[in-house]
């Protein structure tokens, strides 16, 4: 999953993904960030994140995003 952290750190170098637990709830990632992140994740992991997956519990932290990517790549 190093690839995921590379994507996060390269695109949002000033966000501390080790600590942030409310990326969506606190508006750390805006809707435009989510658009960009979903596009990068879809391309990098050959998955399709649908609108139904776009929930705070899947995007509030790096570990939640990691869990989502792992689930979708396993499907």
């Amino acid at each position, binding site marked *: 999953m190093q690839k995921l952290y590379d994507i996060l750190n390269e*695109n949002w*170098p*000033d966000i501390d993904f080790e600590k942030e637990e409310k990326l*969506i*709830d606190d*508006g750390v*990632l*805006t*809707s*435009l960030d*989510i*658009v*960009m992140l*979903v*596009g990068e994740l879809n391309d990098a992991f050959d998955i399709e994140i*649908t*609108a*139904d997956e*776009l*929930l*705070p519990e899947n*995007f509030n932290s790096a570990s939640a995003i990691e869990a989502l990517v792992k689930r979708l790549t396993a499907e």
Partner: protein
Amino acid sequence: MANGVTDWLWEAACACPAKTAFSDSSETVTYWELARQAASAAKKIRRMLDGEKRLPVGVLIGRNAASVTAFLAVAAAGCFYVPLDPSLPEKRLRDILGVVKPRLILDASGKVPAAVQGYAVAPLSELTGGEAEYPADAGIMDSDPLYCIFTSGSTGIPKGVLISHRSVINMARAFSTVLPIDESSVFGNQAPFDFDVSVKDIYLTLYHRARTVILEKSLFSIPKRLMEVLNRERVNTLVWSVSAMKILSALRTFRSAYPEHARLIMFSGEALPARILGEWQDVLPDAQYVNLYGPTEITCNCAYYRVNRRFADGEPIPVGKPFDNMNVFLLSPGGESPVTQPGEVGEICVTGAGLALGYYAEPEKTARAFVTNPLTKGWDERMYRTGDLAKYDADGNLVFVGRADSQVKYMGFRIELGEIETAAQSVPFVQSACCLFDERREELWLFYQADGQNDAALLAALREKLPSHMIPRRVRYFEILPQNRTGKPDRGLLRQTYLT
């Protein structure tokens, strides 16, 4: 007209007191309650300002009905409001406050930022108590200012666009003449209250005794929940920025849900790609779609285009023809003669009832932007030069072509690239900076020359100075920034190397 736009509120409070006017994620306010709270707060505001009128009053805004109450209270006190987003970087808020110098700031957000230290701040909730009483006549003239909204300024300091009651009254009447808005309209407010797209939600709601649902910002990151809210609240009228529609499209929202009750969908802020319009037309074929055009300086919009067909991919959607009481025309590059032939490009110029009073406390900038119409002989008619270039199509509709300067539209916000460069160059380790906008990918690029590479520190410093929509998406470090023959950053080379 004794009370400007607030007359609509007092009349609605008598005509439909129990009807919901505005609601947010935690509060619902009826017309009666809104009028009572606004009248009560207005009385106290007048007292705090020693009865002086036509003064700026800051309002710390949230995504809530309380912000609307605060706006109307300020208006009812005979003053004008300046929406202030408490989440803006401290420097930007200080810049705005430095221009406005408000004697009073109302807090409708519950978040008091450090930048307002030293100013008199009153929580709105402490002003709205008290028995219902008929509001005092504020003695407002319709030429008095109603609000001041700040936009990006090329020199690094934002400009406050001052809009009168008269212009907003004209806007509401003009929209209502040509578009199906009435008391059954339910608006889904997407735009923040310091962005003038939201002015339509507020005042078209009051004018028609309609209802507005204020949507949480985070809902646009969670489209499934957004659609649930829109459908639960039976939202049927949208006045949205194109950026919001682009986001929903990129997140493939309509594959799982869509706003089932939407019947009038108005969009503005930038050009909507025909592909995205088509996605909406697929799920809502019977809805009416309207492209709105206009900068903040002419009170929301001066022209509109009612979409009456499907557009081919890449085909521009016209910005259309003028609203009532607005004259919108093209002037040649020299600014002396009109452009009337289809296909010929000119600058969009505007005269009429929507023109702003000017930029607050900025007489020189006002004089540069609001000039005398060279086509009117015999008297001085005020004209606003938009800086937007357009041409006429065969049907006489205006079609947007581009900008005459370095201003760009990103996420619906106007951005002066010079403002980002000024902010970057004020970071101590940065020696020189150049900002470009990639129109195709819709990304801001910042190229900088510094003592050493430190992208994270530069971005962190910019976040302290600029709002989030002005933070560059791509940053490139140079030991020596490429220069052209005049010693300025070589924009052409940078664009060619990195953006194409």
